[in-house]
């Protein structure tokens, strides 16, 4: 049996530090919102001419007076991702760019993907993203509240907050782009982290009913160990699936799968080291679950 409970305090300090650092990052560095949430234009360009490269594209785009244009390689050497804000909300901007690029590069490129999100739509998308995440947290809170005692609910929610905030913190630290699919990933993380926590909690509750003489400090450790191989196997298969998406699923799914990978890692960690320590700190005992049984 691994003595997870020996490190409860250490990891609580670490988690608190991670959360504080993440919050500071989110406050002062902020998130790198993609055009979905900031508005603007995105062009994925594929060239079949070696003359077209990041610097020549940057040159051409800077001559077009589009403001701040970002040009980056996108996966392979002849794919590029061009993004700009389209501040004046110009119409027909794509056609203008095409005409301009045709002049210098002829027909040796094509636009594989074009996205243009107006300021109104991006504001709405951001709002509904925030609502979706808040709503999912609230619903999880209620669900756990209904199924378990409030101490469990609090533990699960703290674990969820930890996972969401630290994942976003990593995205802020490395300036990774936040777009619609990241919101989907965060929601799935919420579901996954909850799933993981619930399985351990279910065992904790069962053991609480079974043993009246074991303190919660020991009991959580027993429960974590009993469910440990399941925790490892499920995390492993989920991570294997996600790694397959990350490495083979194409550029578009990279951010999504990365967020999910982070979420699964943090989710597994927090189920053990946050959710359970909350139970310990709130001195959950057999009485807590028996009272719940009586009231039912």
């Amino acid at each position, binding site marked *: 049996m691994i003595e997870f409970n020996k490190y409860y305090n250490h990891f609580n300090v670490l988690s608190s530090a991670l959360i504080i650092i993440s919050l500071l990052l989110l406050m002062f560095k902020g998130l790198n919102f993609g055009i979905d949430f900031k508005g603007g234009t995105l062009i*994925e360009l594929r060239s079949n001419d070696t003359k077209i490269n990041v610097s020549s594209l940057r040159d051409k785009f800077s001559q077009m007076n589009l403001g701040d244009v970002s040009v980056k390689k996108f996966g392979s050497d002849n794919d590029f991702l061009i993004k700009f804000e389209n501040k004046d909300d110009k119409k*027909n901007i*794509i*056609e203008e760019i095409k005409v301009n690029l045709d002049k210098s590069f002829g027909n040796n490129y*094509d636009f*594989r*993907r*074009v*996205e*243009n*999100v*107006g300021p*109104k*739509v991006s504001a709405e*998308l951001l709002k*509904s*993203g925030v*609502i*979706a995440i808040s*709503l*999912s947290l609230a*619903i*999880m809170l209620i*669900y756990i509240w209904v*199924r378990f005692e409030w101490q469990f609910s609090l533990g699960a929610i703290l674990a969820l907050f930890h996972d969401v905030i630290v994942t976003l913190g990593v995205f802020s630290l490395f300036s990774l782009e936040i777009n*619609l699919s990241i*919101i*989907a990933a965060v*929601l*799935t993380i*919420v*579901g*996954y982290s*909850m*799933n993981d926590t*619930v*399985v351990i909690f*279910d065992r904790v509750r*069962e053991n609480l009913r079974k043993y009246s003489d074991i303190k919660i400090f020991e009991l959580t450790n027993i429960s974590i160990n*009993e*469910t440990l*191989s*399941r925790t490892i*196997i*499920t995390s*492993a*298969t*989920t*991570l*294997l*699936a996600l*790694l*397959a*998406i990350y*490495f*083979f*699923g*194409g550029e578009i*799914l990279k951010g*999504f799968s990365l967020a999910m990978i982070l979420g699964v890692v943090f989710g597994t960690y927090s189920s053990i080291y946050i959710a359970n320590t909350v139970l310990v700190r709130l001195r959950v005992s057999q009485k807590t679950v028996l009272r719940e049984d009586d009231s039912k």
Partner: protein
Amino acid sequence: MLYFSKLRIVFITIFSLLFVLIASSNLFKFDDSFFDKKINLGLDLQGGSYLLLEIDNEPVIEQKLQNLTTTIRNFFKDKDIRINNIKIDKQNIFFKVSDENKQKVIEIFEDENSEINPYYPRFKSHQLEIEDTGLNIKINFSRQGLINLKTSSQDQAIEIVRRRVDEVGTNEPNILKRGNNRILVELPGLDDPMRVKSLLGKTANLTFRFVTQNEEDRFGVEKLEYEDGSEEAVVSKRIIISGENLLDAQPKMDTQNNQTIVSFTLDRVGAKRFGKATSTGIGKQLAIVLDGKIISAPVVRDTIASGAGQISGGFTFQSATDLALLLRSGALPAPLEIIEERTVGPDLGQDSINAGMIALSIGFLFVIIFMFVKYRFFGLITNVTLIINLFILLGVLTLFEATLTLPGIAGIILTVGMAVDANVLIFERIKEELKGEKNNILAFDGGYTKSRTAIIDANITTLLAAVILFFMGSGPVKGFAVTLGVGIFTTLFSVYFIARLFTSLYVTKNKNSEKLI
């Protein structure tokens, strides 16, 4: 938990086979229409354009208020009530009326059978609101009045949009209302939406009006630019004929001077008015105005009584075709603005499908190997179940003709990763049970029973997340919610019916063996 009746086994087998069969209809063609269903590919996988249009209702409101001022003036004139200083300011109509008539005017507006202010009994609201500000009377659209106005302009606009898109002839466009002032246009297979965009961006308000030198025209005049921006001309506000009078418009080649033109035919009313105007206006310039710009202003040489005419204006064949199309499909009630556009080229779509399939195969392989190494025989059971699960999932998606997107494929891969969870929970529990229980059957039974609450709780949390995502997410992300959500149900089915059936058959056969798992 381990007992299966014969009937149940038959039912499970038939049910699974049915979905495998439905799933396979994506690969083969079935004559039967029930089986001939396919998963729709989202725009991100098959390539295509997604356009979100917003109707700018402000000009419509202005126009309605403008018309209303005339109506109000005439209406009260008949009732011998003098309306003074009528003016429009910020979507409000203001006018003055003598103190003794004030109450009467307000009563007329607030009467449920009011002729001038329609009442909607369903919403308990009038179209217009009236308020006595002390200085004057203020009239503006009520909340319900505005909603009605918006819905009706949306209804008209979606009809025109549909006609225009249909004329371009893309395959199976999807045109839907969004809210009460937006229209969503999905154009599968279209990788260059430029033409559609330029067609939808035009209101196509066509009028024929005389060019006038006389600034004192009875109907008022306005200065309009030519379309090429070269010159300006003063044009009367009197409309001879408008787009509504057109029966047909077609691009043509004028053989005399080798020019592309748009020829049109007018309805009866239009033909009559056009004939009258051309007979009285010989020698005058008749401006053809489209969306506030003059296309051309030919000099009237003859009376045209046939109701047929032509527009020339230095068109290319393409621009003549587009103009004819716009004229045939009619004018939009209000300008449309494209507020969101997402276009994916067909080759990127195909690349995404390939990448998704490779990721799915590899993820699947990883999981299968892992499970086999970890659980041997029971790993095999899990793996066979996983394969059937995947077919059932595809079968359900096919049955409902769901739309598969790239994030949707990611959802399937994730389902593969998470689907083993339930089996793992069960197997681990059985292992624990076997520590204290020597009877295999009882231990397996206990494993299934005791793991059930955890499995259900765990799946419900993921399902809740998927449901929220489905309702809050848009476009491709919705596809992820669908596969993730449906995946949970098919997983539970395959774990509790298929995997349990296999396990039960194996355990009853080897009930006395040691170390089964």
